[in-house]
């Protein structure tokens, strides 16, 4: 098997010294983590490695020697480096060497048979793989290679393949803590040996985060305690809360904020990412809401809206009246049952009359209501959109009522017709066995059944027409509400932080690695450059999508059409979920 040596690119210009890293025997690969420089005392190096091993639970050892020849080759150094193999025994012992020209490297892996018999050593073929230590340290592989035994607390590295390399680099952070300005006994060269990477802002934010989170968590717990008060759980109120999408959205936001400001630390990177995504989503939502608010207030749009609302409602009602009058005549040249047509039409007309008077009763308060509703936009755009959806639902309540009446009548007729059709064929529905049985009817029963069937059949077109027209109107309203809910769900669920990370720091979210063959000379070991393959955007969205409060449509188009045909009531998405509970 070919030996693989993973070598950090930052160490390529380091002075000669010892290679420190981890040997993975299953894959016969050596992960070099740092270079220890001369002069050093072997005992102190061993002590340092033992400390790192204890802190990181990674078997860090001395793997071999590193020789960087800047001037002409020195014979004495070569012998000295070979002699080091006797002090730090490791199988195989790597001897990595870089010549003066930057492109010629040599690498030897020797299996020492014993400390004295140098002649009996065997050499293996070695492949050099360069990796960017910083990127590998910070990147996160997808899907995470976490095996069940590691979650249980077993901290020895158990990830397979290249995940082992990522894991090793990520866990030996203790080795990278010292830079070259430290007065330690051992001088190391690694990715942050020029100075430890840190930011004052990040440190300040870390200090401030604790108290701020505590304060906000207290406030949030007060709010949630108030909302859980028993007064709100009484029958009519709880029913109303469950039907209003604004309440759903507010509850969802409260849950999110509680999770964000909880003082418990995130257990794994996925949870941390989820928290960050939520925070960014809430911030963006509030920012959009504030923009909407300022836009509404700058041009006094609320007043204009309130002025326009009543005429629009009047206009809608007028159009509906025209529609009903058209239906009461001979719509599209159809001849309806005149008596039933008149009854239904008058009933609906009376309803519209009621509705208009109700709207006019409310008209003096509408501007004030809208102003307060506009203020809620500072809670976020999603809340404002949910309120808009609720207002649409309230203003089109008459359409909903017509739809329900029409659907109920139609449903009744369809059911009556289907059972009478069974009677026609000499069958009946057996409720106990849940099947259709044959049955012998009397003459009287058959006569009455046939009579009723005929009446129902002739009255069906009138009812069906009313049902059709009002269902179409209802579907229009449901579509508008559905679109608003889609927008709300989009804002709620989009993982903006992950997307930003993918855009600005593509190596942070890794789908895997890719290799590039570096310039090759015959007789020298093969050199590969390992780069990080970023996660595609579609998978970022798929992996980190936030859960939404809205229930997704549970019906296929087929079942929706079936429901419409049989006159069962359909609801917009949110209420549909409640209904099924």
């Amino acid at each position: 098997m070919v030996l693989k040596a993973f070598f950090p690119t930052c160490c390529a210009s380091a002075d000669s010294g010892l290679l420190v890293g981890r040997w993975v025997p299953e894959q016969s690969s050596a992960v070099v983590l740092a270079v220890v420089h001369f002069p050093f005392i072997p005992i102190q190096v061993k002590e340092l490695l033992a400390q790192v091993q204890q802190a990181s639970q990674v078997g860090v050892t001395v793997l071999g020697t590193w020789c960087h020849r800047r001037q002409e080759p020195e014979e004495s150094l070569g012998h000295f480096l070979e002699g080091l193999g006797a002090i730090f025994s490791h199988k195989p012992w790597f001897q990595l060497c870089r010549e003066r020209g930057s492109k010629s490297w040599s690498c030897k892996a020797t299996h020492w048979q014993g400390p004295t018999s140098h002649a009996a050593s065997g050499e293996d073929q070695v492949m050099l793989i360069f990796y960017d230590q910083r990127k590998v340290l910070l990147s996160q592989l997808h899907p995470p290679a976490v095996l069940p035994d590691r979650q249980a607390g077993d901290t020895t590295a158990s990830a397979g393949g290249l995940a082992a390399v990522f894991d090793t680099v990520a866990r030996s952070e203790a080795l990278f803590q010292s830079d070259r300005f430290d007065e330690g006994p051992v001088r190391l060269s690694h990715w942050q040996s020029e100075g430890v990477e840190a930011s004052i802002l990040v440190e300040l934010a870390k200090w401030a985060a604790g108290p701020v989170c505590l304060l906000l968590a207290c406030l949030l717990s007060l709010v949630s305690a108030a909302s859980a008060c028993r007064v709100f759980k009484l029958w009519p109120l709880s029913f109303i809360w469950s039907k209003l999408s604004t309440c759903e959205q507010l509850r969802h936001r409260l849950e999110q904020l509680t999770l964000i400001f909880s003082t418990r630390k995130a257990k794994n990177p996925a949870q941390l990412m989820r928290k960050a995504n939520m925070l960014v989503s809430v911030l963006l939502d509030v920012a959009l809401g504030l923009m909407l608010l300022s836009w509404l207030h700058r041009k006094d749009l609320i007043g204009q809206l309130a002025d326009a609302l009543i005429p629009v409602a009047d206009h809608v009602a007028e159009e509906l009246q025209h529609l009903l009058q058209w239906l009461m005549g001979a719509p599209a040249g159809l001849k309806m049952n005149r008596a039933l047509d008149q009854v239904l039409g008058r009933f609906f007309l009376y309803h519209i009359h009621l509705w208009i008077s109700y709207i006019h009763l409310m008209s003096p308060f509408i501007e004030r209501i809208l102003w307060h509703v506009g203020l809620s936009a500072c809670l976020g755009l999603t809340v404002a959109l949910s309120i808009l959806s609720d207002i649409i639902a309230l203003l089109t309540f008459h359409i909903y009522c017509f739809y329900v009446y029409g659907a109920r009548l139609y449903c009744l007729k369809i059911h009556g017709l289907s059972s009478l059709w069974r009677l026609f064929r000499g069958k009946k529905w057996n409720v106990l066995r849940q099947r259709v049985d044959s049955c012998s009817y009397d003459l009287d029963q058959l006569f009455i059944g046939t009579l009723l069937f005929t009446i129902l059949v002739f009255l069906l077109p009138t009812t069906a027409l009313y049902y059709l027209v009002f269902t179409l109107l209802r579907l229009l309203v449901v579509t508008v509400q559905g679109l608003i809910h889609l927008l709300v769900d989009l804002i709620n669920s989009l993982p903006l932080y992950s997307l930003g990370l993918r855009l600005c720091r593509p190596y942070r979210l890794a789908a895997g690695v890719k290799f590039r063959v570096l310039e090759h000379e015959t007789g020298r070991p093969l050199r590969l450059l390992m780069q990080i393959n970023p996660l595609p955007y579609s998978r970022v969205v798929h992996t980190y999508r936030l859960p939404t409060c809205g229930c997704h449509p549970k019906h296929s188009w087929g079942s929706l059409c079936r429901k419409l045909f049989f006159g069962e009531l359909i609801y917009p998405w949110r209420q549909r979920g409640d209904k099924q509970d």
Partner: protein
Amino acid sequence: MEDEQSFSDICGGRLALQRRCYSPSCLEFCLSCPRITLRSLTAVTCTVWLAAYGLFTLCENSMILSAAIFITLLGLLGYLHFVKIDHETLLIIDSLGIQMTSSYASGKESTTFIEMGEVKDVVINEAIYMQKVIYYLCILLKDPVEPHGISQVVPLFQGGRRQDHLCIQQKVSLGDGGILASSGRQKVKDTFNFFNLMFSG
């Protein structure tokens, strides 16, 4: 160490297969696809624009003409960026893995790396395309949960089922196109050797 062979794809276009051997443990195959020709580009553009002009004379709405220009431009961009593959590279590194790179005509590169530990087998598959049977190479990936199962089938050189002739030749020389790389302990070595043997001609 390089050698080049040429094959023809399903539609009869010429394909060039380059084999590069960096070291005994690292092989690279590069399949270059035919480039986009000026003739076909002109033909498609002219067809779209003539159709748009025909519609324009019927409806007398100049929106159609501008729409045709946009459709042509966007279609060309999309074709170059997402469909037209310039060359495909297969890099096989012994005991490390198999890397597949597709370079699109716009310069976009998409890379997939499969570790040797995940490879269960390399097989030649048969598929029915239009009215004929074609053969293509694919890699079977191990299922991490079930050791004997196959989690995924990854076709190689899929930038247009274009290596049928290549595989047919090999099928004749390697016998029945069934499972070629044997399973078992020596498989890693065998997968590498398989590619070495397969394309050596």
